[in-house]
Every structure is written in C-alpha cells, then in structure tokens.
C-alpha cells in the first residue's frame, strides 16, 4: 500500500497521484499507440469505433452521471453531429472547420433542449428527452432534401488539410487523438468550479442554489457541453458508418448509450470508457461464442440481445456502481491486502431527508 504525503495544494489538483496509476495509464496509452502494428485492419476499425463510443459515453456521463439529468434521447445528438458533419463535408467544407461547426451546432441544440429541460426532473425529463430523440429521428427521415431521408446519405471520405486518410490506421489515430483530448478535457472540467457545480446540482439542488449556483443556467451548460461532445462522437461515427440512415440514431441507440454508462459505472469518466469497452467487446465475444456452441443453441435467433440483456441485468443487480465500482474494489483489495473484508465497502445508512423542497 502506498501512502501519499501531500505537500502542496497542487497535489490535490493533479490527476495521477499514485505510481501505480501512472504506470497503468502509460501502459494503456502505449498499447493504443502501437495497436495498428498489432491488430488486423478489421479489429483496428472496431477499436476505433470503441473510442468513438467512449467519447459519446463521456458526453452522456457528464449530463447523467455527473449532473444527474437523465437523457433517453442522446442518440439524437449523435445523429445531429453525424448529419451536420457529413452534410457540411459533402458541400466542400474542410474537415477541421466542419468539426468546429458540428461542435458548436450540437452544443447549441443541447442548450436549447437544456433550456426547457432545466425546469423538469425525474420522469418528466426522461419522457421529454425520449420524445426529443424520436422527434429528431423522424426529422432525419422526413427531411429528404437535406438528409437523403430513409434512402440514406453517403458520408464523404476522410480528408484533413487536403491529405486523404483512406487507411484504417489513419482514421484510428484521428479517433485516438480526439478521444484522449475529450478524456483530458472532461477530467479537467471536474477539477474546476464548472464541474463542481454540476455535481452540486446532482446531489442537492437546494443547497447549490443557496451557495450561489444558478441551477437553471448550469443545467443548460451541462446539456450544451454534453451535446457538443456527443455530437463530436457522431461526426467520427459517420466516418465509420460511411452511410447514414435515420434508424441508426433511434431510441435503441439512446438506450445503448444509457446502458453503457450505467454498466460502466455512473459518475466517473473511466466508467464511460469501461462501458464503451463492454458494448464493443460483447458483440464480438457473442459472435465468437456462436461458433463454439452446438448449432441448436448457437444458431437460435435472438441469442445476442438475450445475452446482452442478461449481462446488463446481472451487473445492475450485483454491482450497482458498475464495472468502475468493481475495479475500485479490486484495487482496494490489492492495496490493502490482506486486510480487505467483506464489509469494507458497506456504506452506513444515510439519514432520512424530510421536508425536502423541489
């Protein structure tokens, strides 16, 4: 077990305090950098897609995991990002400018939703965001002049500063750089007053308000930042899909994003990344399983959604903090070995809150 002796306030601001953390992060980043040498193009593309989902997950995590505002329509922002970027690029707008406009546009769309959502909570918010998701999917389908409707929209090929990126590894590095930037930026956010006001609103709107947090405005900000990051993921996703149809950005995709952060572990950036890993690895593992199992089971229709659902149910029942929570416990087990006890993580009863005001 490592004891940290803090000697400066900067020690509390720094991200990676323990040696073990630094080594682990270094290993992961090293692996991600050399991955194109190790993996076949197909798996490399899958890894790139994983990174894109990690970005989208972080976007939703900021809103749902940190600010406590549930969104059942986040795929809409994914779609807004994907369509905006593709349409701009097909009109000859260069990649970097198009990404900037996409960020701005999806951010503004998020703030517009946040404006009305800031007065809602609980079920009402869930239903409102669900309706928003369905609405946007319908708009994608019906606005044929702009989006190509249900017959789809071809995504222009990737080209940055006039350099075409046709190879899988080139696209992968683009995904990687942006993912690391988003992880770094989102983590930054939570060591500043902005991020702390998000968490404050999640835990107690009442006292946040009395400490000078403008609750409505902070919710609008949270929606805006979340939507902008998810929109960025959408733009990158478009290059992976190469062809956009409205159904991709439907309710199921929203649920997938939500399940991702719940299974990964609410309230942590790492949780969103874990969620993205599970969502991406599971289908590959299941298709592998299909070949191994006897045909009578392996070829049954609906095996994939069944296993998917089962795993999610087990995670929620057995580990409400998700994979991230399990990871924390595992680390604690090794750090305090052999003193870990079953009750190490049993929380004491919380106190009754009465007379709470909305």
């Amino acid at each position, binding site marked *: 077990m490592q004891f940290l002796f803090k000697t400066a306030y900067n020690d509390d601001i720094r991200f990676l305090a323990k040696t073990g953390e630094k080594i682990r992060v270094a290993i992961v980043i090293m692996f991600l950098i050399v991955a194109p040498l190790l993996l076949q193009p197909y798996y490399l593309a899958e890894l790139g897609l994983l990174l894109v989902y990690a970005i989208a997950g972080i976007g939703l995590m900021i809103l749902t995991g940190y600010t406590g505002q549930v969104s059942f329509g986040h795929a809409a922002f994914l779609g807004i990002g994907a369509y905006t970027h593709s349409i701009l690029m097909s009109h000859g707008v260069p990649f970097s400018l198009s990404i900037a406009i996409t960020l701005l546009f999806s951010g503004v769309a998020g703030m517009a939703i946040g404006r009305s959502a800031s007065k809602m909570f609980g079920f009402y918010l869930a239903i409102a965001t669900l309706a928003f998701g369905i609405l946007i999917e319908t708009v994608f389908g019906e606005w044929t002049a702009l989006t190509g409707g249900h017959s789809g929209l071809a995504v222009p090929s990737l080209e940055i500063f006039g350099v075409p990126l046709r190879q899988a590894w080139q696209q992968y590095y683009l995904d990687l750089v942006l993912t690391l930037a988003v992880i770094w930026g989102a983590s930054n956010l939570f060591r500043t007053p902005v991020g702390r006001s998000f968490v404050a609103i999640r835990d107690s709107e009442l006292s946040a308000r009395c400490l000078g947090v403008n609750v409505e405005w902070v919710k609008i*900000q949270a929606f805006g930042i979340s939507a902008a990051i998810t929109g960025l993921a959408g733009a990158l996703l478009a290059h992976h899909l190469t062809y956009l149809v409205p159904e991709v950005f439907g309710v199921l995709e929203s649920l997938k994003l939500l399940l991702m952060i719940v299974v990964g572990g609410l309230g942590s950036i790492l949780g969103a990344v874990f969620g993205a890993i599970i969502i991406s690895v599971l289908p590959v593992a299941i298709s592998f399983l299909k070949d191994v199992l006897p045909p009578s089971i392996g070829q049954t229709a609906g095996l994939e959604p069944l296993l998917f659902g089962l795993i999610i149910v087990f995670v929620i029942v057995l580990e409400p903090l998700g994979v991230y929570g399990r990871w924390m416990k595992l680390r604690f087990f090794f750090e305090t070995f052999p003193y870990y006890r079953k009750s190490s993580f049993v929380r004491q009863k919380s106190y009754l809150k009465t007379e709470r005001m909305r």
Partner: protein
Amino acid sequence: MNEARTLQVRNLSIEFGGVHAVEDVSFDVNPGEVFAIIGPNGAGKSTIFNLISRLYEPTAGTIHYGDQNVLELPAHRIVHAGIGRTFQNIELFEHATVLQNLLVGRHSHMHANPFSSFAFLPGIRKSEIEHRRKVEDIIDLMEIAQYRDERISDLAYGARKNVELARALCAEPSLLLLDEPASGLNHEETDDVSFWLEDIKYDLGVTIVMVEHDMNLVSQVADRVMAINDGKLLTIGTPDEVRENAEVQRAYLGSAA
C-alpha cells in the same frame, strides 16, 4: 465581511393554500449579534429562513439587508449579498468529498467559464489554489482536517453538521442563517457548537440568526430571542425575558399550565 448591515424584516407574510405559515412578522437583526428564533414545531421558523433565502415567495412584506432589497434578488444571488445558510436536514453533496463540498461553498467568489475550464488554463489552477487557501482557513477553524478527503456518505451525523457549517462559512457571509445547528447532537457536540458560534461571531464578525430548540444553547449564545407561534410573532427580548413571557409559556405548554 465586516460592514455593519442590518437585516430588516417588515410585515412578512406567506400563505400556502389558505394556511398562514407566517403572518405579519417584523424584526430587525443588528450587525454583530446572535439572534435566535424559537417556537413549537410548525410555528414557521424554517419558513422565515426560506423566505429570507428566497426559496419561497412572500405574499406580503419586505426584507432588506443593509441597502439591498432582498426580494429583488433571485435565490442564487442571495449569497452574493452576504447571506449564507445551513439546513435543518443537512443538505450536503453526498457523493463528493468534504473538500469538494467546501470548494462549492466558495462558488459565489469563483468565476466559471466552461471553455477555459475544459483546457484547464494556468489562470484556473492559480484561482483553485487561492480558493483552496481560504477553504483551509475554515477547515482549521472548524477542526475538520481529518475528514478533508472523506466522502460525505462516509461521515457520521455530527461531522456532517460541522461540514455544513464550514461550507456556509466558505462563502464568507456577513449574515449566517443557521437552521437548528444543534439538532441531533449530543451534549458535548452541542457545547462545541456554542464555542464555534462565539468564534464565528467574534473572530469572523458574522451576524448570526439561528433557529434552535435547545434553550440552554440559546441562552448561552443568543443576544436576543424572537418567539413565534402559528406564524405569529409572540415577543422579542433577551433569552430570560422570553423565557419568562406568559404567552411563550402558553405556546409551549398549553393554556392549562
């Protein structure tokens, strides 16, 4: 922090669907004093606090703090006017550490911009450290250094009470509204509270308004006491005067006594 400002409440009333929770209550709180509000359960004590912190909209009356018309401000600007508060049923940020809670307490003095925060520009680090120093002063005052990195959900009730008081102090208020600072605390902890209130009053020069049931604590620290019942003002005076007041005794013990 030390400007002498008076809290003036005039003819304050609020109705909830025909129930007069507070009716025509007027009082002044002088700078530097400890002013206690007592009364039986449901008398409207916390409602007065919620009116001052703008969580409720009064049906009639005015509230001024110094020259500032409090009723012109939205709830999240009250702390900028110098009025801080705690809650009867501890409203801390459960899933954050004590340090993070206290830093949110500094929110009214911080400038938050999502873009520079996302990039964590050098100016942000500087301001974080500056505010951390202020927070550490309060941590020293309240003697909660050992909890600094604990999550609120791991803290015992008494410690939570202290942290909530510390968080309110982090905003550097000139007027502090304390809603039952000693409820649920044992004798020893209640004694600690009375010492802290003295410290806050004399060292920080903060005016204190508190709702409290513990009459021992009230007579120890309060300069003046206001008694209310059924939303109506009974009397204002020194703790002894109020204790001897016949109407107050009737309100607590019933008319047969």
